[in-house]
């Protein structure tokens, strides 16, 4: 354990090494590049700067199958490019960690400004049904911790786990204690030791089975069950209860840091494992007359929370990358006045 001053992105890089990562492939992009920079020249890791993000994610899929813990890091445009291969990794059950330090989109948007516009892309970005585990820490200290958690969850679920961050938390400098968190071991035998066939086709016992609906149903059920089981170990959230409030504010990542300013007037719930949504929220939500999600998009998480709670949830959207307390306050007041 040591106390050090770190940038959020740096913390991810150092924690990944702690978690036993041996291979990193990436492509430069603001505001995630510092992860690539920090890892370059670290003797514990093989680092590859690839030609694009598609190559990056596929290289880490190969490396992971070959037996080493692997990670890539990007931001929105690169995360979009990776989507097909993320579904592929789910189908083949390859443990990976994919970091997305979000910036304002769509498209090139505002590269140096933080956003939270990729929330639904994490869950639905690739085609077909799959069940990702997604963590979204809100401090440098937590980025360190949840990078290791993400690696553990990836190994336990044999799936790509997404670590979300944003241009704000990623570029933040904070002093942290580098705790020795437990690290999960590899569960999968490396390539070159057997005669398995890894394929993105619907398959059974490593053989393609592309015309049997029963095999496909079983496979999808298996992916879902596995995710539920593993995510139970990581029911991570923060709840700040305010007994005099009948309204619950939900916020995550950069926005949750802003939400702390309103704890005298509201209760605050911050999911850290944002997908699957921490179940605890169902129980907590019952105590409140009103629920408001504040997020840096036009209501992506709000719609997911509504779906889970089967009730109306209100929204304070903060767009354009600037987190201004006046704006948030204005948004909350408007909701109070019923507008």
């Amino acid at each position, binding site marked *: 354990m040591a106390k050090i001053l770190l940038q959020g992105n740096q913390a991810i890089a150092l924690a990944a090494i702690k978690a036993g990562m*041996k*291979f990193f*492939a990436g492509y430069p992009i603001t505001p995630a590049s510092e992860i690539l920079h920090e890892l370059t020249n670290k003797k514990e890791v*093989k680092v*590859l700067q*690839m*030609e*694009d993000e*598609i*190559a*990056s994610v*596929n*290289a*880490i*899929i*190969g*490396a*992971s*199958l*070959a*037996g*080493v813990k*692997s990670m890539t890091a990007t931001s929105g445009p690169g995360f979009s490019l990776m989507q*097909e*291969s993320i579904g*592929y990794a789910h189908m*083949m059950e390859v443990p990976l960690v994919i970091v997305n330090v979000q910036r304002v989109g769509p498209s090139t948007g505002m590269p140096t400004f933080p956003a939270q516009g990729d929330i639904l892309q994490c869950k639905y970005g690739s085609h077909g049904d799959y069940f990702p585990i997604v963590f979204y820490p809100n401090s440098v200290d937590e980025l360190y911790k949840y990078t290791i958690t993400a690696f553990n969850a990836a190994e336990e679920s044999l799936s790509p786990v997404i670590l979300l961050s944003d241009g704000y938390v990623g570029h933040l400098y904070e002093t942290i204690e580098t705790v020795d968190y437990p690290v999960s071991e590899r569960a999968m035998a*490396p*390539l*070159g*030791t*057997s*005669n*398995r*066939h*890894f*394929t*993105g*086709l619907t398959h059974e016992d490593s*053989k*393609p089975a592309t015309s049997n609906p029963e095999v496909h149903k079983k496979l999808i059920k298996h992916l879902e069950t596995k995710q539920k089981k593993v995510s139970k170990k990581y029911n991570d959230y923060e709840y700040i209860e305010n007994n005099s409030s009948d309204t619950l504010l939900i916020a995550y990542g950069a926005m949750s840091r802003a939400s702390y300013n309103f704890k005298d007037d509201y209760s605050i719930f911050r999911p850290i494992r944002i997908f699957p949504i921490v179940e605890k929220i169902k129980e907590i939500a019952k105590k409140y007359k009103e629920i408001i999600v504040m997020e840096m998009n036009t209501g992506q998480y709000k719609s997911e929370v509504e779906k889970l709670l089967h009730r109306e949830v209100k929204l304070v959207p903060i767009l354009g990358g600037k987190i201004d307390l006046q704006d948030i306050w204005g948004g909350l007041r408007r909701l109070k006045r019923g507008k």
Partner: protein
Amino acid sequence: MTRKLTYLNYLKQDLLPTQWCPGCGNGIVLKLACQSLEELNFPKKGTVVVSGIGCAGRSAGFFNLDSVHTAHGRAIPVAEGIKLANEKLNVIVISGDGDLLGIGGNHLLHASRRNTDISIICIANAIYGMTGGQYSPTTELGSKTLTTPSGNTDTPIDVQALIKAHNCFYARSTTYHLKHAMKCMVEALKHRGLSFAEIKTQCITNDGRRRGFKNGYEMLMYYKDNYKINNNSNELKHNEIGIVG
């Protein structure tokens, strides 16, 4: 005289016959690849075959060793990740021309710059076979396909030039020239650094048929008549096959 069939150990024989069409050349490449592995005594444990998507992309699944069937165009970066994570493995890519040179072309461009130690066998049938016969990056000028009904007007990609520009290994052969094609594969597998063996392979169902060939055999005869072996050149002409090294 009976020829030893020990190369069959490299195949999952219970998966045979393949799902490839009668007259398809992919099986020839698959067999030659197994014979090359045998010739070099590559251990089944310690060798990995990677394919992309397409008819050719189905090759990987037939090998009796750990194999990976990637997303379309992504065999090369997956293979590079495997090799760089465990340098002891022999990593072989077998995939189609569309997969390796079209959708995955940018990866080949950069993998050859990196000179990653992988061997690539390209089943070059000059067509998108699996999707019904659209023109591919290696379709000849003037060739009629489903999507070039008046003849292809796009210059086919010069893979040799691309590979040689980065000082990697290049060889070209056809499914007619069995011994030669095997020699190309063996040399490609032996090469340290990135190697690329382009094997011209007939697709009767979705290519030859539209170009007036009656069957796969006629396409093989076309290879016989039109490709000349030249093993002493460092630049193969259009109708030459050989090992440029």
